[in-house]
């Protein structure tokens, strides 16, 4: 009986602490953001002119001091500068980098190097992929070509930045 009461007390205490902790982190989450891409550049001004002050790693935390429509002024220790809002989110980057990683996990075969193409194939399973190859209503070769052409988030961000430079010029 005593044990039960202790157990209940501990449970309530734990729940209380968990709630308090949640509130604390919710408050912080409004200011802390995470770098989503590799080698994200930090600029002196909100614009892409000039060399970056520094580069941050994917998953790094920064404190947001100010925001504009497309830029955040951020701080990380002694470093202070501007980053495009595209590369920051208020949640850590997902562990799953791409469909390829997920597929590699699913396939669970360390010897088999998953390309972007085996990926989605792995989601269906190898047998399933073979079944599709025989289906005259499907063009798997074209599908693979399509998946080969997919670009990464990093490539797309670089592309947008180049566009922004064009406009500034």
């Amino acid at each position, binding site marked *: 009986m005593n044990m039960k009461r202790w157990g209940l007390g501990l449970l309530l205490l734990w729940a209380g602490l968990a709630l308090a902790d949640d509130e604390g982190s919710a408050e912080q989450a409004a200011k802390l953001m995470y770098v989503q891409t590799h080698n994200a550049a930090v600029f002196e001004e909100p614009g892409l002119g000039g060399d970056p002050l520094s580069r941050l790693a994917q998953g790094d935390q920064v404190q947001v001091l100010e925001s504009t429509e*497309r830029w955040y002024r951020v701080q990380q220790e002694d470093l202070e500068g501007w980053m495009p809002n*595209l590369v920051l*989110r208020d949640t850590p980057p*997902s562990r*799953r980098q*791409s*469909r390829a990683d997920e597929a590699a996990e699913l396939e669970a075969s360390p010897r088999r190097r998953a390309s972007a193409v085996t990926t*989605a194939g792995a*989601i*269906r399973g190898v047998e*399933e992929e073979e*079944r*599709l190859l025989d289906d*005259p*209503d*499907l*063009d*798997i070769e*074209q*599908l693979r*070509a*399509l*998946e080969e*052409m*997919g*670009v*990464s*988030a990093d*490539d*797309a*961000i670089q*592309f*947008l930045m180049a*566009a*922004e430079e*064009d*406009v500034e010029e």
Partner: protein
Amino acid sequence: MKHSAIKAEDSGAEPGRRTWRCLSPLLALSLILMPLAPVLAEHPPRARLHQIQPVEAAEANERAEIRVGREVAARILARHKLVDDPALQRYVNLVGRAVALHGDRPDLDFYFGVIDSEQVNAYAAPGGYIFVTSAALALMEDEAELAGVLAHEVAHVDRRHIVEALNIRAPEASPMAGLTRFFGGATEATQVFFSQAVDRVVELLFEDGLQREDEFEADRFGVRTAARTGYDAEGFSRFLSRLSELEGARAADELSDTHPAAGERLERIRVLLQEEGLRGPEQNRFQARFEQHRP
């Protein structure tokens, strides 16, 4: 069924008993009741399992969505080949991915393809497989228009319009799952499930069209997403307007089979642009870059 399952527990041999005792009561209960789930009105044991594993269920559902979308993409590609122009395809992928990063599902891997077709149209299969026809591309005048069209399709994926309309989800999350797992034959049942889903998606995309409200929502979200990406927010309506003015309006007719009338869409977009102050900037049309890539 319930009776026999309990009996199996009671009369198990010694090592069996041990295993049963090790199982958590919830798991044991769900194993017993799993085959009964389809006949229970609200499937309480299943609902509880879902509450425990919402993330896994969501991931399984997304995998199911991608699996269906991928097969739909292979079907579309069997009808219309990819335009053989790697530079163009890469360019369209860059614009599309940039837009998708500003949508509701930035982590999803999107694939964009220009397909050879004389119909002015674009298609979004579930899971992020998006197509725009060569005829649609020929009708566009700048990158903001391309971004607008792709953003409309990305919005269909982000808002899971087809997934919801057809209730596409992981077979293990459906009420039938317990039954098939219990009696075996899950593989066949799964294949049938996916094939039927793929058939229905193709019908929706090429014949029936989505619900009018879904199209309006995709217009709204698409315009906002293109603007957030930094494009001239009027790109999509300029394209739509040109499409509806096409003499002979053959292309417009083809589109109107599966979409609401252009006039009503344009009016709604005009109101949205005005209310949310999404006009311009005009320099963000990137016409020169678009012209470089268009065949």
